[in-house]
């Protein structure tokens, strides 16, 4: 295996053999290891000493089901700690099939006004000037790049909000239809990427299969994982995810009294049904020309959880996910599905993370900038972000910044990253994940919602603290491994209930890497990744006081359950013992 090292200070590109230590790694394991080894923990995230590492998973580029995830790692401009965000896209599949396990971007051009594009093809890899794309919106950019380099290319790019170096921005990957809708969204990875002077990376389309050392074992593993995904009610064809998308969660979290509403001041939203997966499925059925349920973010996903939502005008909005519907919807008191879908498309177009944007707007609403429910006002704020006006820069920097500027105390963030769509005062296990993950408040880092609310992978009472540290730790460690395989984290729903599926995933990884891992080893690998990330944060200056909930959650009971965050700090700290 090789990796590509791009130095933006002298604009050089090198292809290097992957050192032995990293040979079996992929995805998050690889990004976090390189960041921990090569980036000084105390460096400025937007400076020349930070690096951006882009790595497909161990199984990406193979025929293993739903394995086309690509990780982006860096020191986060939002949290100041280590960051990995991932997306599903053909980009990583091509890269892996070409024999590259990572792209490492380092340094910084002297002229901050210049823009570059990295073009990776089988023949050559070159950095070319890209000033013509400066501050270009991403739908237009993707169209232009597909026209120039070919309609099947893989594209990673950053929007104008990221070029303003705002901490609430992500890296966009193109989907099969060349829409910039698949985001490694969180933690300001977009700003880190843009700080290198890079506007986009283009990878030539490559068919076939990435290198596999043991084809027989691979087939055994692939089939076991596939069987689990096709059997489980959540992941199977015409199952819950395929039929309703991730937004099928809106109603259940609302019925659980744990759908954060109007900046985390309530756990129920009266407009929930209007912004639910059921509502989108109905709209898609009425307009199949413009709408589609069961969209796949990358070729080879067998689950297909994504949604193309048709608005009343018949315009398509791609990848309208639960987190977005919640963040811009319930959390801002907005129940207009068309307005939320429009903002989803705008966020994708200018490069913003929809969760951080929704949290930022909700805090601004609390601070009196605009009233809750004001969809028009929120849409206008997106234009401010695109332009990079002072107000736009405040909003685009995330909810922590907005809270400081507007004097709002109720800021739902951990390590300065805005919380996703689950109320931690009511669902304690996800609270432990938000608070302790090295990523800052992140649900995907340890999705204990599965057993706490959904009855997937066991059953835990969401309201109690008992056993939640262990539950979150187990989920966090296992997720670290899954995020390294390139498999979508949603495969976890099936393999939590069907152990042979997890065995299959590990066997397929063994077939690709030549390793001999058991599922127990996979857990240990995940735990070690977690420890590496935690150690980076400690070296960056974090202490146990950064593993704490926002104060208001200890003081303000949230209706309808009227619960507060009541877990002892010592219990939280025990996760690292």
């Amino acid at each position, binding site marked *: 295996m090789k990796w590509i090292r791009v130095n933006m200070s002298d604009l050089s590109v090198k292809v290097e053999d992957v050192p032995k230590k990293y040979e079996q790694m992929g995805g998050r394991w690889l990004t976090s290891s390189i960041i921990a080894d090569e980036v000084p923990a105390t460096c400025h995230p937007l400076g020349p000493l930070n690096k951006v590492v882009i790595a497909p998973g161990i199984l990406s580029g193979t025929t293993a089901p739903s394995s086309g995830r690509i990780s982006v790692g860096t020191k986060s401009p939002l949290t100041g700690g280590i960051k990995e965000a991932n997306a599903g896209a053909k980009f990583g599949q091509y890269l892996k099939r070409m024999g590259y396990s990572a792209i490492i971007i380092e340094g910084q051009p002297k002229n901050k006004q210049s823009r570059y594009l990295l073009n990776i093809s089988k023949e050559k890899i070159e950095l070319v000037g890209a000033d013509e794309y400066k501050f270009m919106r991403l739908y237009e950019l993707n169209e232009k790049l597909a026209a120039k380099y070919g309609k099947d290319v893989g594209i990673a790019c950053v929007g104008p909000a990221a070029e303003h170096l705002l901490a609430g921005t992500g890296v966009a990957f193109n989907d099969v239809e060349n829409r910039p809708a698949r985001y490694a969204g969180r933690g300001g990875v977009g700003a880190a990427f843009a700080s290198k002077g890079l506007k986009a990376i283009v990878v030539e389309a490559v068919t076939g299969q990435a290198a596999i050392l043991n084809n027989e074992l691979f087939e055994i593993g692939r089939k076991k994982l596939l069987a689990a995904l096709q059997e489980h*009610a*959540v992941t199977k064809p015409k199952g*819950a*995810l395929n*039929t*309703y*998308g*991730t*937004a*099928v*969660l809106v*109603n*259940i979290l609302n*019925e*659980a*009294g744990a759908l954060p509403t109007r900046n985390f001041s309530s*756990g*129920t939203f009266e407009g929930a*049904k209007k912004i*639910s*997966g*059921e509502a989108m499925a109905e709209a898609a059925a009425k307009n199949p020309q413009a709408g589609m349920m069961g969209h796949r973010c990358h070729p080879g996903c067998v689950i297909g*959880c994504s949604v193309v939502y048709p608005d009343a005008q018949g315009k398509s909005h791609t990848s309208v996910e*639960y*987190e977005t519907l919640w963040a811009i919807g319930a959390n801002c008191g907005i129940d207009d599905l068309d307005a939320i879908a429009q903002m989803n498309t705008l966020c994708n177009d200018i490069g913003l993370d929809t969760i951080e944007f929704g949290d930022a707007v909700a805090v601004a609403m609390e601070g009196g900038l605009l009233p809750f429910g004001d969809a028009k006002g929120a849409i206008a704020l997106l234009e401010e972000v695109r332009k990079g006006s002072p107000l736009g820069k405040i909003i685009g920097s995330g909810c922590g910044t907005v809270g400081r500027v507007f004097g709002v105390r109720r800021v739902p963030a951990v390590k300065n990253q805005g919380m996703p769509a689950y109320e931690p005062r009511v669902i304690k296990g996800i609270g432990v994940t938000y608070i302790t993950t090295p990523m800052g408040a992140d*649900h*995907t880092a340890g*999705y204990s*919602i*599965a057993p706490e*609310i*959904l*009855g*997937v992978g066991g059953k835990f*009472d*969401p*309201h109690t603290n008992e056993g939640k540290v262990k539950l979150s730790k187990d989920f966090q460690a296992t997720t670290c491994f899954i995020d390294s395989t390139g498999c979508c*984290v*949603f495969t976890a*729903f099936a393999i939590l209930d069907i152990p042979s599926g997890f065995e299959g995933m590990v066997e397929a990884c063994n077939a690709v890497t030549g390793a001999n891992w058991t599922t127990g080893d996979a857990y240990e690998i995940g735990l070690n990744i977690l420890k590496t990330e935690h150690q980076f944060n400690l070296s960056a200056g974090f202490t146990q006081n950064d593993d704490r909930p926002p104060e208001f959650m200890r003081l303000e009971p949230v209706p*309808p*359950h009227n619960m507060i965050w009541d877990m002892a700090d010592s219990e939280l700290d025990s996760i690292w013992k």
Partner: protein
Amino acid sequence: MPKITVALYAGLKARAHAPEGASEFDLDIPEGSKIGDIIKLLDLPDDEVANIFVDRSLKDREYIVKDGQRIAFFPLIAGG
């Protein structure tokens, strides 16, 4: 007779003996009805009902439903 509010989600409304097209409706139930009895009353596919919330809290089929309560039925679903 206790009167409760029923909400059906994620495809269950099409599978229930419920007022035409409604995903949420009021229902009179015999005194002392358990959730399991209501599943039968509504003709819901028992093996497909996975999670049941009564007044925002998860309950099992043995729970006795009281007047004025809200009960929501879900099949096995997940997302993220």
